[in-house]
């Protein structure tokens, strides 16, 4: 077992919750008559009834792993895989957006051509996976598809694009991707592209937000009915998108900056504007977006002492290196990093609800893209979000909005705007 291996398991977590409940005071919920165990049972029933949608998973990266089978249950402690169809079922996750992601490369014709080819390959992987597993999942293209597939007992698989780089400089690619099934595009990723500026590009802003070409892309997305995703964009991208888009926008995986100060998270001003816009912020399970990384001075001291005692690295034998690695692994196990938990997640939800309202928050875990925390380590554990929401007094109606209702509402509005634009074009 390597030093940062996660040991959580959904059943284990549930059992702990129940055991805690056996010794805890009755919950304040249900007029103080409900035990913790009863609360968990009620929460799981709610979780089962509502449509649960996760708007962001980088699982297509797994799909290009030779031999990886989405129909098999994978142990997240083996390779870190966070999503497959059996675990979606275990976690009661009804629908998910798989993001076709291509890393930012050089922005010339050659690079754009390659990005397009790689993006199409990812989309084909998604579609092929749904076709091979059509007894348990279905490719979803429209908002109601999620509900219809749920009634059939199937998981709904939507497609998004993370990073507008594969659009290149060719606007017609937007329609090509729409026809392939893409229903949102994250305009930019971790460095600037031809559409927009990134929140994390070391060279800073290039376009001052959305570029002239990006403006055309947003208009085309509005025309076609593709949701505009501002996650990963810098603050100016958000403001430009809000001003520009004729349809509500989304942040497919971002949190609240007032709770955790990270430039990938959204300020209160942004949250309020998102509410005015009618859009939705989808909470993500990225530890460093959820809480300030706590200090661990005991571990730091122990690691420093171990480093100080070692031979120069260039003089070490292979056996000595292996022994030293083992010593570091043991230190990590002795002094584990305090994890982000579901409580941090719902702290963000509480804040967004307070600032923007219950209609503007959802869930976008970013599994297989770094997302996964204690208690929500993979798709099989997402029910723990619902349990914490119930513990904090959220009603079923509110949970239904958070888990999918808000996103579906936005999705429908985006399609309605597209229909109107296309209708206006004809008249």
């Amino acid at each position: 077992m390597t030093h940062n291996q996660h040991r959580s398991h959904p059943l284990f977590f549930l059992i702990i919750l129940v055991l805690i409940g056996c010794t805890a005071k009755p919950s304040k919920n249900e007029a103080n008559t409900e035990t913790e165990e009863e609360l968990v049972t009620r929460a799981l029933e709610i979780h089962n009834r509502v449509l649960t949608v996760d708007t962001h998973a980088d699982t297509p990266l797994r799909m290009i792993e030779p031999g990886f089978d989405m129909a098999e249950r994978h142990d997240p402690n083996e390779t870190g895989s966070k999503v497959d169809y059996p675990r979606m079922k275990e976690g009661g996750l009804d629908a998910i957006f798989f993001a076709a992601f291509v890393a930012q490369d050089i922005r010339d014709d050659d690079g754009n051509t390659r990005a397009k080819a790689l993006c199409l390959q990812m989309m084909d992987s998604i579609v092929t996976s749904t076709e091979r597993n059509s007894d348990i999942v279905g490719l979803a293209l429209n908002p109601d598809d999620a509900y219809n597939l749920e009634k059939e007992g199937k998981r709904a698989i939507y497609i998004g694009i993370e990073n507008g780089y594969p659009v290149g400089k060719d606007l017609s690619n937007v329609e090509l991707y729409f026809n392939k099934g893409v229903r949102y595009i994250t305009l930019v990723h971790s460095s600037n592209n031809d559409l927009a500026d990134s929140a994390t590009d070391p060279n800073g802003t290039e376009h001052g937000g959305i570029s002239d070409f990006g403006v055309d892309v947003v208009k085309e997305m509005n025309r076609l009915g593709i949701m505009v995703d501002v996650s990963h964009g810098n603050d100016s991208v958000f403001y430009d998108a809000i001003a520009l888009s004729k349809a509500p926008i989304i942040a497919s995986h971002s949190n609240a900056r007032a709770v955790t100060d990270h430039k990938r998270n959204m300020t209160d001003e942004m949250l309020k504007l998102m509410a005015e816009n009618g859009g939705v912020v989808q909470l993500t399970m990225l530890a460093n977006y959820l809480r300030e990384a706590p200090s661990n001075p005991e571990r730091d001291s122990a690691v420093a002492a171990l480093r100080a005692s070692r031979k120069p690295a260039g003089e070490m034998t292979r056996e000595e290196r292996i022994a030293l690695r083992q010593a570091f692994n043991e230190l990590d196990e002795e002094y584990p990093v305090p994890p982000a938990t579901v409580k941090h997640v719902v702290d963000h939800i509480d804040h967004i609800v307070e600032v923007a309202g219950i209609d503007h928050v959802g869930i976008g875990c970013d599994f297989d893209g770094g997302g996964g925390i204690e208690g929500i380590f993979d798709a099989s554990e997402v029910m723990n979000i619902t349990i914490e929401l119930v513990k904090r007094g959220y009603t079923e109606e509110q949970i239904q909005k958070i888990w999918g209702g808000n996103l579906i509402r936005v999705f429908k509005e985006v399609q309605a705007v597209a229909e109107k634009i296309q209708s206006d074009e004809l008249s």
Partner: protein
Amino acid sequence: MKFKTVCRLFFLFILLGQSAQVTSHPLRLSLCEVEYTGSKQLLTINLKLFLMDVNEALVFDPNSKELAFCQPNESAQANQMLLDYLNQFFYVKANGRKINLKIESKKLSGEGDNVALGIFFKYQQHQPLISLEIKNAVFTDLFFDQNNIVYVHVNGESNSLMLNKKTTTHRLTF
């Protein structure tokens, strides 16, 4: 030409998300681009690794300045230690023949915890490329959830695959 090729490396490393580890960069990921152009009989390999991971693997300290990659005071041992490590966890076989890794150039990009070390290899491949076998298990000795994306471009056709601790190697035929 070399500069242009090096520039083909990804401008900024992939940061899809963040892990729970405090002392680390966000995600356990590396990027590799293998390209073959038949008309030039040229096979190039670009590896892009988080510098923190490289330092952790080589000198047990993610923030170490000891090897000082790409700095004026770069350690005389830096390249050899890097190659010694890569030769344990990475190879490319062209037509079944393992390529002898020899660093053509290196480059740093990004900032803070996200600085990436780009490592560029270049070979003359005179015979038409029939198969490529790629092993990429870098940093799987450090992180159980390390994933290594490989982009393969052969004569204008692009393909991508993911290699990791479970699936370290894959062979493509053309």
